[in-house]
C-alpha cells in the first residue's frame, strides 16, 4: 500500500477528519445557539414583572407601611409564586431625609436575580411621617 499510495491516504484521512470536526462543530454551535435563545423568554420578563407587581401591591395594601418584618414576610410568601424567591431591604427615613432604620426581609439573594426599587411614604393623618425606600431582589428558586 505504502509503496503505491505513499502517505497520501493518511493526509486524506486527516483532511476528512478535520472537515467532519468543522462541520459537526458548526452544526452543534448553531443548535446550541438556537436552543439557548428559546430559554430566555417570558420567564425572565415575568420574573421582573412579578417582583415589581408584588412590591406595588404590598404598598397599596398597606403591608410595607407597617414596617413589620413578620407581617411583610407573611404577605410576601402568600403572593410570590412557588418557583420564585424574593428578598428586600426596607430603609426608613424621617421627613428630613435622615436615615432611621433598616429592615431585612428574607435572606438576601446573592446571585441570578433582578433588582428594583420602590419608594413609599407613611402618613400620620394627612401628614407624611416617614419615607421608605425598598430595594428588592427577585430570582428563581
Amino acid at each position, binding site marked *: 500500500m505504502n509503496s*503505491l*499510495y505513499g502517505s*497520501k491516504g493518511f493526509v*486524506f484521512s486527516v483532511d*476528512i477528519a478535520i472537515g467532519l470536526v468543522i*462541520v459537526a462543530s458548526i*452544526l452543534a454551535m*448553531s*443548535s446550541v445557539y*438556537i*436552543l439557548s*435563545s*428559546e430559554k430566555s*423568554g*417570558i420567564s425572565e*420578563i*415575568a420574573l421582573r*414583572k*412579578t417582583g415589581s*407587581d*408584588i412590591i*406595588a*401591591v*404590598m404598598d*397599596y*395594601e398597606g403591608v410595607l407601611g407597617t414596617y413589620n418584618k413578620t407581617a411583610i414576610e407573611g*404577605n410576601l410568601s*402568600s*403572593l410570590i*409564586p412557588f418557583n420564585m424567591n424574593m428578598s428586600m431591604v426596607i430603609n426608613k427615613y424621617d421627613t428630613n431625609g435622615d436615615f432611621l432604620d433598616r429592615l431585612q426581609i428574607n435572606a438576601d439573594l446573592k446571585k441570578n436575580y433582578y433588582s428594583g426599587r420602590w419608594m413609599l411614604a407613611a402618613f400620620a393623618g394627612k401628614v407624611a411621617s416617614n419615607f421608605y425606600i425598598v430595594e428588592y431582589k427577585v430570582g428563581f428558586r
Partner: protein
Amino acid sequence: MSRGQIITSDLLIATFILLAMIPVIVFSFESALDTASGNIKRSDMEMAAVRISDLLARTEGYPNNWESNASSAIVIGLAPSDRKLDAKKLAAFLDADYNMTKEIMNIRGYEYYFRMVNNGSTKGMPVTGDNAAFIRRVVSFRGADTLELTVWK
C-alpha cells in the same frame, strides 16, 4: 497510471462522504430552521401575553370610560391606577364578546384564557393547544389578587 488511480479513489471516497453528509446537513439545517421558526412564533405569543397583561393590569384603557360601552373600546385596561383593578372595568371586560376583545387586543391568530385567582372570574377559551404563553400578574383587587393570562394556539 498508478497516480491516476489514486486520484480516482480519492475522488470516489470524497464524493461518497459528501453525498452521505448532504442529507445530514440538510436535515440538521431544516431542524434548526423549524426550531427557529417555532421560537419566533412562541416569542410572538409571549410578547402578546406580556403586552396584554401590562395593558390590563397597568392602564385604564382607552377611552378611559370604555366600560360604559365595551364595543367602543380601543384599548382594554382594567386599572384606573397602576395595578389597582376596577370592579366595573373588570365586569365590562368579562361581559364583552370574546372575539371582539381578541380584535381589540390584536391577537386574532391566537386564543386567550384570563383568570382572576382569588376572585374566581374567568374569560376566554381554556387551553387545548400545544403552544401557550402564560403570565401571572399580582394586582390589587379587593385585596391582593393574581391575574393569570394564557395566550395560546
